[in-house]
């Protein structure tokens, strides 16, 4: 019995942590501070940064990538990622508008078909990864090219017509806008909110619940952290990953459709290189690239950081072309921070 007590006392000291320390060691803490600093700096240089108009604009563009990032957070927590989301983002609206414009079916049905196609792409990727044990990097790289190629080939590279959306309820539900406290067609002096933002908020709540509170979330984290241990406990790791691939692809498709309605064009080339931006958003937020740990709250912060950065540096007069430089620096900085936290958390290992 004495042996046991010595065993136990060894690890006690580092585990007693104050509240401040615990807050500091959450993965969301770093991105939170960065976001606050960015807002303060941008606003102090250009007060218009926090104007309702600018916030409304920034939020509009934010959600489309944000939707993909939410799903990608779950997928990456499970230890996989998907490089084909940008291609799915471009392909899905092309399918939907082609079906609709050719009078094959009404818009809602075309939407359903297009999202099903997107989900199937995810299922293919998932099958390659879970059944054939091919790394998701290679599988989704292949899928990325296949889907992009299909979109270009189907359309001969031309954008699809999308301007007959006025009386489509689906378009209103997905991207309709309303105005809070402003007046006139341009919502002067008010905040213009697009429906897509509402969707983003709803889905963020749902996926946060799934990842952090639900049993499925425990399985997701276990699948990414130690898949063999999860399998030994009877967790259906392959099914979990498959579902997440399908979810991610479906979300990429939805984001693509929303974008196509907003900009009135279904361009087979749209979404190019979105996959890397989405992955950057997720890892900046504190989700581990290799899986096991993920946070939706962090991803929301990551999404805001990247989008506000691109908006902010233009507003304070930095040439927009330098955007990537800042993003790269932020990614590197955040990775240093997160790897430091990781080491601290695994001290006893």
């Amino acid at each position, binding site marked *: 019995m004495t*042996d046991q*007590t010595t065993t*136990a*006392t060894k690890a006690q000291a580092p585990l007693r942590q104050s509240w401040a320390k615990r807050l500091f060691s959450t993965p969301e803490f770093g991105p939170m501070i960065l976001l606050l600093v960015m807002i303060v700096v941008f606003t102090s240089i250009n007060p218009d940064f926090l104007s309702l108009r600018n916030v409304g604009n920034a939020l509009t563009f934010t959600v489309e990538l944000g939707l993909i990032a939410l799903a990608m957070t779950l997928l990456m927590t499970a230890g996989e990622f998907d490089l084909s989301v940008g291609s799915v983002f471009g392909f899905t609206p092309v399918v939907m508008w082609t079906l609709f414009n050719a009078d094959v079916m009404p818009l809602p049905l075309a939407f359903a078909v297009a999202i099903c196609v997107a989900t199937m792409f995810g299922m293919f990727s998932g099958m390659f990864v879970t059944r054939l044990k091919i790394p998701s990097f290679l599988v989704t790289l292949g899928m990325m090219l296949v889907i992009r190629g299909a979109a270009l080939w189907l359309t001969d590279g031309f954008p699809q017509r999308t301007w007959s959306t006025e009386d489509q309820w689906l378009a209103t539900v997905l991207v309709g806008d309303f105005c809070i406290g402003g007046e006139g067609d341009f919502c002067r002096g008010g905040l213009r909110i697009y429906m897509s933002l509402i969707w983003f908020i709803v889905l963020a709540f749902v996926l946060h619940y799934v990842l952090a509170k639900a049993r499925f979330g*425990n399985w997701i984290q*276990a699948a990414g952290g*130690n898949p063999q241990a999860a399998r030994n406990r*009877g*967790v259906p790791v392959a099914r979990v990953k498959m579902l997440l691939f399908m979810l991610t692809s479906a979300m990429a498709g939805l984001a693509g459709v929303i974008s196509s309605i907003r900009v009135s064009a279904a361009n087979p080339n749209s979404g190019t290189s979105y996959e890397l931006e989405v992955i950057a958003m997720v890892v900046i937020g504190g989700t581990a690239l290799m899986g096991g740990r993920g946070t939706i709250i962090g991803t929301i912060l990551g999404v805001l950081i990247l989008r506000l950065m691109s908006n902010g540096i233009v507003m304070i007069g930095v040439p927009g072309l330098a955007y990537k430089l800042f993003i790269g620096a932020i990614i590197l900085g955040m990775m240093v921070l997160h790897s430091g936290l990781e080491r601290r958390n695994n*001290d006893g290992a």
Partner: protein
Amino acid sequence: MTHPSTSTPLIEMRNIEKYYGRIHALRNVNLTIGKGEIVGLLGDNGAGKSTLIKVLSGAVPYTSGSIHIAGKEVMLNSTNDAIDAGIETIYQDSALVSQLSIARNLFLGREITKGPFNKMDLEHMNEVAADLLKRVGISKNIPPSTPIGSLSGGERQAVAIARAMYFDSELIILDEPTNNLGVAETQGVLQFVRDAKAQGHSCIFIAHNIHHVFQVVDRMVVMRRGEIAADDLTPDTSSILDVENIITGDHLAA
């Protein structure tokens, strides 16, 4: 093949054969484990120990033969089948997820949920976990929300064993539980095994370190080349040298 077990044995493997393609991994394996018995499973690398364990834990299907638990034949087609049948395997590196908390690991795959959306009852899970940690002798100062990654090797084994005891596993299979542990921690783990026996659990204890095996087991089974080479050795009747000779066998030169 007769043992002093008075009643029906807990586990009985009859004529188990296992082929991996052309490789004959298990040859006519007959093994019984009594209730509350700690059996040491010994053998050199490639002797068939891990295959035997994988068969018992439902991780790989056997080619022929049958497995009986408390006299009834069972089908172990998946890990879940084995867990449901009361067989819990604690693998060396893949027992726990280091990123997850103690409580989340304890209930992994068997989470306590409430409500229609499968919400985990973390409060309840943490309570049970704290209680279990106290029972296996880990200090109560480690909160159940601590990630496994910050525990020592011995504490991790304790958590894994506590999990098996909590889910009332009749048979706990320990795969190299004392590997990479210090002296004090090893003694701690061996004590957990004795405690498990005291509470009526049977154990299969696999370790390369025969000294550790000798300290806890009631009986030793030696495997060589996929066969059971001996299954009635006890620490009282055999010396460590005897056992080592059986493990290496005459076949070594061949």
